[in-house]
């Protein structure tokens, strides 16, 4: 009887260890998206969509400059202090207003890229975010960056799986992912 109990205990310990192992390398992609450049957001979205098409779970963590890409151009948030208002004016309002990391040429670059993307049948950023939502790609927004930039939740895009969290959540997600990227 005691032997049985001991065996059961050992099995339970093993089960716990196995589930820990299974969770340590999930078929999951985690990207820390920090850059707010149009080309880099594009890269993050294309890789995410390819991963989602491969049935890989995708978790994006948006922080710092990348938050601009998640602003909704039609929304505004009242009651901001002076600095937050200034940040709001200085930073791009939404994914259509992002600049390029190279060859920006005062806005000419993005215009040319958008023209070329259309010509080459590449999905627009808007279409990519829509597909991402349909494919269940999760977007987590860094709460601390929100405060830093003075953005409010009311001015962010409508997205099916949008949540707000801290760096710990990203680290926890990334720790379970077999692919981790920083863009």
């Amino acid at each position, binding site marked *: 009887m005691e032997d049985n109990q001991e065996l059961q205990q050992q099995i339970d310990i093993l089960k716990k260890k196995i589930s820990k192992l299974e969770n340590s390398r999930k078929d999951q992609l985690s990207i820390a998206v920090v850059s707010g450049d149009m080309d880099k957001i594009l890269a993050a979205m294309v890789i995410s969509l390819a991963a989602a*098409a491969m049935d890989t779970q995708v978790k994006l963590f948006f922080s710092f400059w990348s938050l601009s890409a998640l602003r909704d151009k039609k929304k505004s948030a009242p009651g901001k202090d002076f600095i937050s208002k200034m940040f709001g004016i200085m930073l791009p309002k939404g994914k259509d207003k992002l600049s390029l990391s190279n060859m920006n040429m005062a806005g000419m670059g993005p215009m040319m890229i958008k023209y070329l993307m259309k010509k080459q049948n590449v999905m627009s950023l808007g279409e990519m975010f829509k597909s991402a939502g349909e494919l269940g790609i999760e977007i987590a927004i860094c709460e601390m960056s929100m405060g830093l930039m003075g953005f409010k939740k009311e001015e962010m895009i409508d997205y099916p799986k949008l949540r707000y969290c801290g760096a710990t959540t990203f680290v926890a997600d990334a720790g379970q992912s077999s692919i981790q990227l920083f863009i």
Partner: protein
Amino acid sequence: MTTEELKGITTNLIVDARGTACPGPLLAAKKAIGDVESGEIMEILSADEGTKVDIPRWCEKMEHEFLGTLEEDSYTRLFLRKA
């Protein structure tokens, strides 16, 4: 499969992804594969060069059997059997 075999194949579903670049054809394939039964054959039409490499990799991961490609003038036909 040989070119001759592919030419004579009956496909259960044709996905026309010629109007989109990477990752469009892959997303189209993912969307369409749900409409095909296991063991049935799906054909993807793509004008995107990268897709020729990407779809076999996708099949490998999803455990579908990649059957091969047929080149047309301005696009490629890619064949696979659903797992």
